[in-house]
């Protein structure tokens, strides 16, 4: 065997290792910088403290955790039914020529940089909520108030952003349901609609769940668009129209402002984010495996 083969193999291996090593390096860095404050300040104080005011020495990340969760949940509540519906439409209902137009359009939606969505949200959605939504809400609750920078705005924009992920992954899952299932159901006298809801969607559920989890990851991780439209208010929100700040937004905004303690607190926020995403990924692969095995 020619001599350089071994050398090449080692080079290739090194490249593969570099990719992995960077993960460990990133993890190491974040934990090294962030863990001390978690210890010093107390994990529960950090996780459940309601005041985030680093200059005053308060590092309670709870408002941001709730902020991240609330915009993400909101995005899922809007985006998941829409996304799955579009996926069903593409895979089962739409005639070919519509699929040909609609699918690339959805893919385009995925490619648009998130700041463009943020910009759209800032210039259209935020005023819209203040001017048109608020009066409606005020009819029910006269005390309601919003500047427009809100969970609602963030959730809507994030919903649009995760829509393509959900549509694409779900559509693939639905398309890969064996046609025999569909035929079996149709031949029993089930309508197309019944076949979709009772046979096809259940059979595709692991893929659909995966799409939701992926979308969720994207929503939790989004940063700049969210800074532009949620108002960045580190306060536990009381309603959908309240402003919130998110984990990612806080890191991005305050990263430079680094008294050493403050910077560590931001890394600790990074740890939370990191764990959150890990948890999501593990649940995702977990459910996929469990459902796939059945």
């Amino acid at each position, binding site marked *: 065997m020619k001599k350089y083969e071994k050398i090449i193999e080692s080079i290739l291996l090194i490249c593969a290792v570099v990719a992995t090593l960077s993960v460990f390096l990133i993890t190491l860095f974040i934990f090294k910088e962030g863990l001390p404050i978690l210890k010093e300040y107390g994990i529960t104080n950090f996780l459940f403290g309601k*005041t985030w*005011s*680093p*200059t*005053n*020495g308060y590092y309670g990340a709870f408002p941001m955790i709730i902020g991240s969760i609330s915009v993400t949940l909101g995005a899922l509540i809007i985006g998941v039914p829409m996304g799955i519906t579009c996926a069903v439409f593409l895979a089962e209902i739409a005639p070919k020529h519509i699929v040909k137009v609609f699918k690339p359009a959805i893919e385009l939606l995925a490619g648009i940089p998130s700041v463009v969505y943020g910009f759209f949200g800032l210039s259209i959605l*935020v*005023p819209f909520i*203040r001017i048109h939504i608020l009066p409606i809400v005020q009819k029910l609750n006269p005390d309601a*108030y919003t*500047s*427009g*920078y809100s969970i609602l705005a963030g959730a809507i924009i994030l919903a649009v952003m995760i829509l393509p992920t959900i549509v694409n992954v779900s559509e693939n899952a639905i398309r890969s349901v064996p046609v025999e299932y569909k035929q079996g159901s149709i031949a029993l006298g089930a309508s197309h609609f019944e076949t979709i809801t009772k046979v096809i969607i259940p059979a595709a559920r692991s893929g659909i769940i995966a799409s939701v989890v992926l979308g969720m990851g994207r929503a939790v991780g989004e940063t700049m668009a969210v*800074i532009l439209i949620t*108002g*960045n*208010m*580190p*306060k536990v929100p009381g309603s959908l129209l309240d*402003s919130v*700040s998110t984990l990612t937004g806080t890191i991005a*905004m*305050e990263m*430079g*402002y*680094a*008294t050493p303690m*403050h910077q560590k607190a931001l890394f600790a926020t990074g740890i939370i984010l990191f764990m959150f995403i890990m948890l999501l990924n593990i649940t995702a692969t977990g459910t996929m495996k469990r459902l796939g095995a059945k």
Partner: protein
Amino acid sequence: GCTSNGEPVQEKTGENTLSGKIVIAGSTSVQPLSEELAAVFMEKYPEVAVEVQGGGSSVGVKSAVDKIADIGAASREIKESEKEFGLTEYVIAKDGIAVVVNPFNEVEDLTLEQIKKIFTGEITNWKEVGGKDQAITVVSREEGSGTRGAFVEITKVQKKDAEGKKVDKTTVNALVQPSTGAVKQTVANTPAAIGYISMGAVDDTVKPVKVEGVEATEENAKAGTYKITRPFLYLTKGDESEIVKAYIEFVLNEGQEIVKEEFISVK
């Protein structure tokens, strides 16, 4: 206080022979001024590139300390805790902080006490200060902003607590925006908003209110009648390169003509 202790560069390095790159980072209030100064400087020395970017005053301090920028910019005085880094400070200008509201807001004048109460959340409706019956949208800067630091100190939003520790009492119901420009834009687009920005950044999209009856103008700030002012600082650490020296020298002398246009010169 003014602590311009940098040795003035005496001998002029021959014109046009300077070349290289200067990176300035930090305060978003200083940023527009730096941009203009840099533009003129680069015209003079075409071989020099001056890169200006924002981030906020603390980024300015940090980047000077870590030497990731040649010059850090800050829109507040250096804190006690930052003194130990051994930074060299140059006061390049003074600036007032304008308290701005939406142009449609009919409130014209606020006292320092009212401003303090609005920003600490004690006053939450414009009618309490002579405006419409409308909830106030407070817009503040992020933690670590120089403008915020100076503002809360002067307006007493920041207080000493029992242990003598300074505590920033800015209401938690404030929207937070990460730059002077973002605050301005938020106030411009939100009818009930109030915020504070560098006086040099004020334009007709927002309306500065009088503070204690004094209009927010450079003259008043210079005269000391307008109370909310702070210095603009350039920070360096260790030995400065030729071009950095030349640039700072330029800013402190010829540059002051440019400073005068929107800010208060230090000459």
